[in-house]
């Protein structure tokens, strides 16, 4: 029986995303990065976030912690009703994008090097492979976000159970914001997965792009102010301002990560379509 593919393109993209989820957690590297991620978050949740939340709930006697928050420019967080989520928000905005750079670094590099992509391209299009991998990594990030949000919620219930409903209401808003913030970082790694020949080089290149390109643009903008528009291509350029506002206000800047993600993905797909595998 010949079985020609008659599935909807989205079905295959979804299958590839699912497999990416399975393969990421089955690999030694995936397990290692996830374990580190979990360890760091457990520590963050049960120490800095818990203590900061307690300090925000009871300012008396916790002036040291509050002064650190002020120093970090996170003073507006004190206005949040839900202190646990306020601190979580400030931490997650930085940590999730940073982790996604490493977790999503190997979307295709290893597989391309060992020739495994050749088993796929006769069964689905390159577009389905490329976008399926991106979707898979966004699912991984979303899953991890949900886990950390649930744990933060449990902390909230333990400390301030009267806010259980408010906690439930803010979770979707935080999740949406953080998914949007993380997406251009994952998309950047999709692009670098096509361009680079080793996972280490892809991660290194991402760090270089994020750190050095900002410095270069700043320097050039002194002489050519118009060039400052290129800041909008640096993933996470809006995170600092997001950390100081509530998630609902932060959503107003969501066009930036959306635009960045679309740009990186289009560029990456354009290159992958022509790449020899």
């Amino acid at each position, binding site marked *: *029986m*010949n*079985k*020609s*593919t*008659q*599935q909807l393109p989205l079905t*295959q993209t979804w*299958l*590839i995303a699912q*497999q990416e989820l*399975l*393969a990421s957690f*089955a*690999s*030694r590297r995936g397990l290692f990065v996830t374990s580190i991620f979990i360890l760091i978050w457990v520590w963050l949740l049960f120490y800095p976030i818990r203590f900061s939340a307690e300090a925000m709930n009871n300012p008396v006697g916790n002036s040291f912690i509050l002064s650190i928050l002020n120093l970090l420019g996170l003073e507006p967080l004190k206005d949040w009703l839900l202190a646990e989520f306020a601190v979580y928000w400030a931490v997650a905005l930085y940590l999730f994008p940073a982790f996604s750079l490493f977790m999503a670094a190997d979307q295709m590099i290893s*597989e391309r090097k*060992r*020739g*495994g992509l*050749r*088993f*796929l*391209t*006769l*069964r*689905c*299009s390159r577009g389905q492979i490329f976008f399926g991998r991106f979707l898979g990594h966004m699912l991984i990030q979303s899953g991890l976000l949900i886990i950390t949000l649930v744990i933060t919620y449990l902390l909230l219930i333990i400390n301030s159970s009267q806010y259980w409903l408010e906690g439930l209401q803010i979770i979707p808003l935080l999740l949406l914001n953080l998914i949007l913030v993380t997406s251009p970082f994952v998309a950047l790694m999709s692009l670098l997965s096509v361009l680079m020949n080793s996972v280490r080089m892809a991660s290194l290149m991402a760090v270089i792009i994020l750190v050095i390109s900002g410095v270069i643009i700043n320097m050039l903008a002194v002489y050519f102010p118009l060039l400052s528009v290129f800041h909008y291509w640096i993933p996470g350029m809006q995170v600092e301002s997001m950390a100081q506002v509530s998630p609902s206000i932060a959503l107003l800047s969501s066009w930036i990560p959306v635009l960045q993600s679309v740009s990186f993905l289009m560029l990456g797909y354009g290159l992958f379509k*022509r790449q*020899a*595998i």
Partner: protein
Amino acid sequence: MSAMIECINLSKSYGNKKALKNISFEIQSGQPIALVGPNGAGKSTLFGLLSGYMAATSGEARIFGHKVGSPELIGRIGALPQDALFDPNLTLLQQLSYLARLQGYSRIDSLKEAARVLELMQLADVHKEKITALSHGMKKRVAIAQALMGSPHLVLLDEPTAGLDPENARNIRQQVTELSGETTFIVSSHNLSELERMCSQVMHLEQGELKALQAIGSVSDMVTNDASQVLDYLTLRLQQKDSDIHNKIKQLNSVQNVSIKHDDEFIIAYDRQSNIALDQDLLKLLAAESVSYRQIIQGQSLEDQLFMKTNN
């Protein structure tokens, strides 16, 4: 009927090196086709282009009337890519059933299909193993199993038996022969006797150029002055070398030429239309001269057909 594969002025360069030089050919579906040529002749490049792994520098390749890489070809072509490896972290069944699902099988059917092709390659007992636990030959068989998944119309096998033990190589040949009714195979290999047994046509590449695309065993020969005359061949292998018999074979009716491959092997070109029973005449001659023979084969070997420079 349009050709199964149609290549028009297909070229591929790697930097300054031309791996394929303007090759054009048409292949109809049917019996297995051998792809031969020395290392660096462009065989894997041709497979790569037909499978859509890379783009041609110029020219066009069409399969079943569709440009290579078209969505219409998805699931209709199977391929054994050279040196491609599976994910080292997942089991064979996980990976093959995933590929089957991409081809349109349901979850349950994909497991059955994966089990079926593993069974074909005699790998059913290792379906729960990861690829890293398998020997080189077994890895190769898993890769062949994936190429056969979904019974595609066209299967490209790049050196399928390289590194396999004789028993498994025989199994691969057997599967190709058995499945060739519904699937057209194109097989590249350096083992010419193996290709000879499996394939009915041969495509000969050398230095990126297509030297020949012809039926195995017959050829319109240059021995005769009449270009339209098609000669047939008998290959005679003797038990012991006997140089005297050479001239006596030449005297037989319809024999045009006798080439000496080795001292104990002769390739006899003859006009079959003028003597359909040359093989019987040859047997009588050998009996009369008390010459023992090992084999008399209709046609000439693929090796002789492609490469032999004989002594007349």
